[in-house]
């Protein structure tokens, strides 16, 4: 009967109920949406780094520069063989040889990042899911090179053309080779599309005259959460350092945590507003229903019963609003979790150096959604405690004649 009373009382002033609900819907909706998008962006940022340049564990020369367009070839190392006791946690591994070169095509020239990759193993560590290749990906030196789409545009080069790559060798001499363009690739990763010329490992090693030497060695693990433990157990070859995806994405994730703080602030404001709205609604109801409260007390309601009735009304308002908000926000998040959002346009516009992968998949987490619903409900419940208390303090003898 208490529940029936609460439900009917909510329906009694639908306009007011809907208004109070709306604030909760907004608060919980934004919370769910925001978490979904920020979680998605976080994962997107991690993927953008892991899938294109680091893997889960990355070996590189000690003190290797990580800023700007710098790829020294002074401290190259031999591609290592992973110790047997670590092999179980490894899904795949692949070496790369990066160096700076000058690409020349007719009158056009630019500084580029040459990426030598292992034709067999590279795709097992780094994702090519978003690649659009015009032409072919080279399998050996004989096939030529693959230009990033932006590089091709700058050089006004296309598949089948011939370009010249000029690089400093490991020994410090200048080497130049005339190479065929095997294809042009758009990957969605700016550091490849805008600045890279990719080639088979043998071709790269020929250019810098460094047989068997590499600058990077990336490992993909079955479970990326093992990365830290993996690095601790792995004795890296002399002159190299091993780093994890966690360290490599820390700077990017710091930006996300600022976003999260901003979201929390916004949600706190929205839920604060809805708490005030609900408190106000329940307080108004308490004053409007003085005589009813008196009557209920005459029929045998205790103070506690009156308190419970009004808190129940507030909690129900909160629960309904929170469910609606979660349904709306969750619907959007779930949708974009499934289909993703294509950010390649944005990446092209910013031209640049943002660490974002082409597809953003929002983070769909049912526990997070359920938590948001519970959070909204509890806040509404707490907000109604004071007004319910006011209703429960009325003296029945006065209240029945109000």
């Amino acid at each position, binding site marked *: 009967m208490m529940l*029936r*009373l609460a439900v009917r009382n909510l329906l009694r002033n639908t306009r007011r109920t809907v208004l109070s609900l709306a604030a909760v819907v907004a608060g919980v909706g934004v919370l769910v949406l925001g978490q979904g998008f920020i979680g998605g962006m976080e994962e997107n940022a991690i993927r953008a780094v892991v899938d294109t340049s680091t893997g889960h564990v990355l070996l590189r020369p000690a003190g290797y520069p990580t800023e700007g367009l710098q790829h020294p070839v002074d401290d190259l190392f031999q591609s290592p063989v992973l110790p047997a006791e670590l092999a179980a946690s490894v899904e795949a591994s692949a070496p790369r040889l990066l160096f700076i070169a000058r690409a020349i095509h007719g009158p056009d020239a630019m500084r580029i990042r040459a990426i030598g990759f292992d034709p067999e193993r590279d795709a097992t560590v780094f994702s090519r899911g978003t690649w659009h290749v015009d032409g072919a990906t080279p399998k050996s030196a004989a096939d030529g090179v693959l230009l990033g789409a932006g590089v091709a545009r700058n050089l006004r080069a296309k598949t089948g053309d011939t370009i010249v790559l000029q690089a400093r060798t490991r020994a410090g001499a200048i080497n130049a080779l005339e190479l065929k363009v095997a294809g042009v690739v758009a990957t969605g990763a700016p550091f490849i599309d805008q600045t890279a010329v990719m080639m088979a490992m043998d071709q790269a090693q020929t250019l810098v005259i460094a047989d068997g030497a590499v600058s990077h060695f990336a490992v993909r693990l079955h479970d990326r959460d093992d990365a830290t433990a993996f690095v601790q157990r792995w004795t890296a070859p002399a002159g190299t350092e091993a780093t994890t995806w966690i360290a490599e994405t820390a700077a990017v994730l710091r930006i996300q945590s600022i976003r999260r703080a901003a979201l929390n602030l916004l949600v706190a404001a929205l839920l604060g507003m809805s708490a005030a709205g609900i408190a106000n609604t329940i307080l108004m109801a308490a004053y409007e229903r003085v005589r009813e409260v*008196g009557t209920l007390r*005459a029929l*045998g309601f205790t103070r506690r019963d009156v308190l419970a009735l009004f808190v129940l009304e507030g909690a129900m308002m909160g629960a309904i609003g929170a469910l609606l908000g979660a349904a709306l926000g969750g619907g959007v998040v779930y949708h974009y979790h499934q289909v993703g959002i294509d950010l390649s346009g944005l990446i092209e516009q910013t031209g640049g150096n943002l660490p974002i992968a082409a597809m953003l998949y929002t983070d769909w987490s049912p526990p997070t959604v359920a938590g948001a619903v519970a959070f909204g409900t509890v806040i509404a419940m707490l907000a109604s405690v004071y007004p319910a208390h006011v209703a429960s303090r009325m003296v029945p003898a006065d209240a029945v*004649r109000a």
Partner: protein
Amino acid sequence: MSLVSVVNAVKTYGTGEAAVHALRGVSIEIEPAEFTVISGPSGSGKSTLLNLIGCLDVPDGGTVRIEGRDVNGLDGSSLAALRAARIGFIFQSFNLIPVLTALENVELALQLAGAPAAGRREKCAETLTAVGLGGLLDRRPNQLSGGQQQRVAVARALVKQPALVIADEPTANLDSTSGTAVLDLMRDMNAARGVTFLFSTHDPKVMERARRVVTLTDGQITADEFRT
């Protein structure tokens, strides 16, 4: 043992200059199956006295005993339990719960009195039929006339078979015909079931039907006559 025993009850609202002495030492005994009216001019303390007897309030001085229990010794929830089980209320403004139907209003009272769910609804429907509302069980209060609402209130008060029904000016908001009808209904219930009724009123129609009329003036009892 009297059903109700009030000894030297005092009730004062406010303090100092503004103090209103609503009751100045009222003593009254009420026996089971009485049909008693408290009469007196407006402001004489009738409602205050009924509220004390109905356990909606406690006296500042003196004692109020219901079936031998001193209400001053009871905490809020014991008073609520006493009201729920032993006392039925009928108010001047009907005081039905607007969001509940006639049947639900009656059922709420019976539920609060602790009646088991089995057969509860049927019992409420029977009681409403007995007060002449058999066809209006599912009406909300705003779909009922004043007379009909007060009948629902009578059913709500009677359904739990209370020791005492308190009716504070039950006919004041009714036209003469519905007032008479509601009064006759209560008189019949008193005669047929032995329900104890305690009214306040200054309506002569109510006084005509009373077997005992207590007159309250300025917070004091000035007359107490039994009729035959």
